[in-house]
């Protein structure tokens, strides 16, 4: 992991040193606000919780996270800086994890900025703060999984647009396999245990489980091991593609 913190710092500097960060944060805040208060029928529900807020995160992330992750490796390879990076005395693992963590921290900052919603709810009623915290945890883990997918895809192409589209499709697939409708469709011709297995691979299923406030270690292990697996594949992919 040598070089991880150095790469992490550089990447965070790159996010906040360019308009990317501020445009992204603004769009994220506007969209989360809009879907919560309008699409989510926050007022009509007349309940002091943030379920409508979190319910739309997986969908918002589908567009926003590939937009963030598309440049992670594609740009390094296109501009050739990947060569400068890997001739420094740092390890592949350090670079991959450093880049990933920087992007994840960035999402974390975006999520932190949405805690105004939490304050509003606390002001309007008496929400279950544990559930809201769990919601944030679930959302953050979900974002991490999408990011790991996006980072891997970004390592496979030099073209940011291709990286964006492929990441979106990959994340959408991981999201959809857990949707009730999709599972029913597969249930028509696949045995039940295979459908269950599909469902257990879905980000959405685990996200919902965590955001209900039930912290099952299996859900946490799912996200952490998925991210770890994707980052490992990411390192292998860069090692293979960096020369091309």
């Amino acid at each position: 992991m040598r070089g991880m913190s150095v790469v992490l710092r550089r990447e965070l500097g790159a996010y906040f040193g360019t308009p990317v960060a501020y445009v992204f944060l603004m769009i994220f805040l506007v969209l989360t606000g809009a879907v919560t208060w309008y699409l989510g029928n926050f007022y009509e529900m007349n309940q002091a919780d943030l379920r409508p807020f979190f319910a739309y995160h997986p969908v918002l992330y589908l567009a926003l996270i590939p937009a963030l992750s598309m440049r992670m490796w594609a740009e390094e390879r296109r501009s050739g800086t990947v060569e400068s990076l890997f001739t420094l005395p740092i390890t592949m693992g350090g670079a991959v994890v450093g880049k990933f963590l920087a992007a994840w921290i960035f999402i974390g900052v975006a999520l932190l900025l949405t805690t105004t919603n939490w304050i509003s709810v606390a002001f309007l009623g008496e929400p279950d703060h544990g559930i809201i915290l769990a919601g944030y945890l679930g959302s953050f883990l979900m974002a991490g999984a999408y990011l790991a997918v996006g980072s891997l895809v970004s390592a496979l192409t030099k073209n940011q647009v291709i990286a964006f589209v492929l990441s979106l499709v990959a994340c959408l697939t991981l999201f959809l396999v857990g949707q009730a409708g999709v599972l029913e469709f597969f249930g028509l011709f696949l045995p039940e245990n295979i459908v269950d297995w599909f469902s257990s691979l879905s980000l959405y299923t685990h996200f919902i489980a965590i955001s209900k406030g039930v912290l099952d270690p299996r859900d946490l292990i799912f996200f952490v091991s998925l991210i770890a697996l994707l980052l490992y594949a990411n390192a292998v992919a860069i090692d293979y593609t960096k020369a091309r």
Partner: protein
Amino acid sequence: MIEIQHLSKRFGRLQAVDDLSLTVLPGEVLGFLGPNGAGKSTTMKMVTGFLRPDKGSIVVQGHDMAKDPIAAKACIGYLPEGAPLYPDMTPQTLLRFAARARSIPAEKQAGAIDRAIGLLELEGVRHQRIETLSKGFKRRVGLAQAILHDPKVLILDEPTDGLDPNQKDQVRELIRSMSADKVIVLSTHILEEVEAVCTRAAIISEGQLRFNGKPSELRENSRYAGAVELRFEGQAPADSFLTLSNLPGVERVEALEESDYHQGWRLFPKAGTPILHAVSDHVRSHGWQVRDMHVDRGRLDDVFREITRSGMAPSPRPSQPQPAQALAQEEV
């Protein structure tokens, strides 16, 4: 010290580097020459640890690149081809990043950065975003990054490409000034650059080492293109200088060695005139005892082409194209 043993690298069907062995010692400046696509950059990318070789070993300052890449990379300063840099950083933040990545102690980082910025005269653009800098400045930022940690080994892929003549001179001067205790390898398309800064030239073509020697060897070849060297048994006959000078096709005659005891002459032909037959007829008609007579081959670019184009006879054309043109023709 860099020790390269039987290095090979293949990309698909292209054998980029083919069984290349080379050793570079401290104090040496090795000029790496070859046509585009000869394998120069690929070799440098393997020596710096960016690419893994298919076969062969690379040992840098005693560290095997395959077994201990971190230690080996720590000894190396590298300027990749085209000097790629993060466009959103400034020279200051980029050098700070490199200093941290190279684990330069925090209290020494500022000094190392100031030194590199001073050596490459980057003070004026220190806090300017790299994407707004000119090509020459970008190249110098890349060089600053390469020399930041005062490495024992410097690998520079076309360090003067894109610089104006004054900047080229500056960079060459910088390389010369650092060369005393360092191992320096630089690649270039400019043959004259090899003479200007390198103590040794290595020419590769099709991934193979074709020439490995002093630049002066190339230089001699270039000056005496087409000249006939004539060496007598014992001292040169008294009238030989004058009569040879008057031969048709002979431009001028000079002594082979600077002394009063002349053993032979070097005869420079007028442009494009083969003079070997005229000279040998002349020698025979006078009955001189000749120990050795031969035609010196090629100019610098001529030699370069001869070396890099395997199995091809040197061009019979009297006017040779410049190296850049020769390379451009090869690309077509």
